[in-house]
């Protein structure tokens, strides 16, 4: 197990190097120039050239890459071209809303989706099953921003029970205001996950319910609830957890849109703004950061298999 973890951690290094190289080259090859954005309409060509010089953008790409990697090795993700703030500080300012939105979304999605999928599987073919599947298809089909606006219109503008936008930190403003502000974004972002996880849960549970050991459990006179909870759900958990891991990438994409719709100052918006302004250090830093998170979470999920299924050994 220790050897496996060590190998997995070590294997992230070449992956991160490739990601860094790819991101760096893509950004430099893409059209657009932060110096032109900074210089504005009044600038002469000399002004733009001087700003490029000042930002180090006129150096050869190899020099720029080595300078960036050199700083990266020392834990320095660079400095925002526009705000002049270190990227690590900008990530630090924005990470809390994103992580908490992601966490509440995953928790809410699992709490809703697993029972839904299980019930649908248990009553496969019934009206309830069809309703759950209809919800799943709808959840996949409705874009996050459309759902966000519908929820804002319903709960904020019409019923006036939840705020339109904003974020309150549980550490600063308290848990109540946090919950008050995070509810709509969480529900909005969760729907696609609920759909995904419910479908996977249903499929896995249906498959498990046809296994011999379920028939044996029934023959031994165990209640359906016990069969479902103790035998079926636990054995169906591995694919469900796998889907949650895959869904992290989906979550990162969804966070960008959700944070914009609900005006949450998180990492998603930071990366969007940086792309539009060609703030290279922020884009590079954030993509590396997101890649690391993605790899880390998938490692955690792989390790969780050993807890869910004792037959799995590394």
């Amino acid at each position, binding site marked *: 197990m220790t050897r496996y973890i060590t190998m997995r951690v070590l294997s992230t290094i070449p992956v991160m190097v490739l990601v860094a190289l790819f991101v760096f080259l893509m950004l430099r090859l893409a059209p657009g120039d932060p110096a032109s954005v900074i210089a504005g309409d009044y600038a002469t060509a000399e002004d733009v050239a001087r700003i490029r010089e000042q930002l180090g953008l006129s150096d050869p790409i190899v020099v720029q890459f080595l300078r960036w990697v050199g700083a990266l090795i020392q834990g320095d993700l660079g400095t925002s071209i526009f705000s002049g703030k270190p990227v690590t500080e900008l990530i630090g300012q924005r990470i809390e809303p994103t992580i908490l939105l992601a966490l509440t979304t995953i928790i809410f999605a699992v709490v809703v989706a697993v029972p839904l999928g299980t019930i649908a599987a248990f009553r496969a073919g019934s009206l309830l099953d069809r309703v759950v599947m209809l919800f799943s298809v709808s959840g996949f089909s409705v874009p996050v921003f459309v759902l966000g606006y519908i929820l804002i219109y319903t709960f904020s503008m019409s019923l006036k029970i939840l705020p339109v936008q904003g974020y309150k930190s549980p550490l600063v403003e308290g848990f109540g205001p946090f919950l008050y502000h995070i509810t709509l974004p969480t529900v909005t972002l969760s729907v696609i996950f609920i759909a995904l996880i419910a479908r996977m849960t249903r499929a896995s549970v249906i498959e498990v319910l046809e296994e011999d050991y379920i028939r044996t459990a029934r023959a031994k006179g165990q209640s359906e609830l016990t069969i479902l909870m103790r035998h079926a759900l636990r054995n169906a958990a591995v694919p469900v957890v796998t889907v949650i891991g895959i869904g992290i990438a989906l979550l990162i994409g969804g966070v960008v849109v959700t944070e914009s719709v609900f005006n949450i100052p998180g990492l998603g918006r930071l990366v969007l703004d940086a792309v539009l302004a*060609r703030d290279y250090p922020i884009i590079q830093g954030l993509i590396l950061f997101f890649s690391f998170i993605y790899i880390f979470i998938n490692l955690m999920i792989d390790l969780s298999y050993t807890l869910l299924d004792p037959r799995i050994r590394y």
Partner: protein
Amino acid sequence: MFGWMTRRSLLATLLAGPLALGALPGVAQAETTLRVIPHADLKNLDPIWTTAYITRNHGYMIYDTLFAMNENFEPQPQMVDTWETSEDGLTWTFVLRDGLTFHDGAPVTATDVVASLERWGKRDGMGQQLFANTASLEAQDDKTVVLTLANDYGLVLESIGKISSNVPFIMPARVAATDPFEQITDFTGSGPFVFQADEWVPGSTVVYTKFDDYVPREEPVSAASGGKVAKVDKVVWTYFPDQTTAMNALMAGEVDFFEQPANDLAPLLEANPDITVEVNDPLGNIGFARFNHLLPPFDNADVRRAAIMAMKQEDYMAAAVGDPKFWKTCYSVFPCGTPLDNDVGSEVIAKGDIDAAKAALAETGYDGTPVVIMQPTDIPILSAFSLVTAEKLRNVGFEVDVQAMDWSTLTSRRASRDPVADGGWNMFHTWWIGADVIDPMAIAFSGNPDAGWFGWAEDAALEEARAAFAVAGSEDEKKQVAQTVQDRLWSIGASGQLGQFFNPVAYRSNVKGLIKSPVQFFWNISIE
């Protein structure tokens, strides 16, 4: 039972009350906060380093200026108490008024003024021209600044009192010593508000607090001039990337002031009795279609003029802005309603006559060279301008290639003087805020391809006229020269002009005291 509470506040109280008690800072103080949705994200804080309007607005919050434009676009003293000019007009002596203090408590001195103007003069177009005509700028004593011109120059006060980017804000000398191509890192100003650096979250929030030691002038406020009285304790800018969410937040009372709602949201906002929607900027914006004068087919003035003849302003404004109450046609290159507004040459552009344009193009011998139009799809107004132009040019007989991109890509590509095959271009669209094209000195009107604006128009007579404006004495003389400039601009087909349009502001009924101006100011505004 809870008639005095909204359902929202009741829920918030129920949620927040028992759970957030630990976070309460004690007894709340009566503090007035103006909650603003600014027109853009404040990405950087140096109004000399960048020309971004949002950074200019930030500059007005925390810095002060020697002179400032009033609503008639006349420079008025702001930090200056008295000033005099020598008989030959070459020596200008400015004396600072009493009570000017930086946010760190240090007095504002003439040395700070000199350093600030010198830094500004290295970046700003008008500043560069002023210093090109300046022999020396010196601090005579703590409160007296002496500017000595090398030759006759008529735009001294217009330059140091200019209202839009780059504004010659006065910073402490230690800050102004920063290389003008590097960002400042010390944000000490002497304006009516203090920037709270530790609360700044780029992309989200900017917080300003009232500067208690600021001494406003006694004159009534008029555009950028007059007494800057901070009537709220705090101004919080919260950037909303999404216009619909911003509108909803204003309607729900979560913010007080929305600086630049999209014109098509106006009907929804106007339907809310608690919200006022009005045009606060009397000059608005001027739409421009810019040609690349270096590349065919627009290296030929007759071809450019043929294209301009087809540009019917009503069509552009209807497509890009919509509601006629937010736009008007304007056939003066200087914004309509400003002192230099005139109609010289307007007969060429006012008709938008496709048939006449076709005939004019036929006479040029246009060979079918495609016109590459850069279309910034992330800016709806400019995207619409691009599509209208494409349609009109096709109708006239041009081959047109519309290339979609984002604004960042466009700003980079428009700097290219290369042929189209190597990344060049033929046309792009933009707008200037009216205050930026108020006189012939605007870079948009340059006829010098080496120091001019993208598109690189070249016309010696135009440059002569602009130089004459810089030394024009009387207002009549200035108007006369401005007409010559306009005549040259239309004669060479420098740019197409697409109309004058206005962005409304929207605010809740408890917001009072907005200042009519091309720049949004936050002094004089109170919350009732």
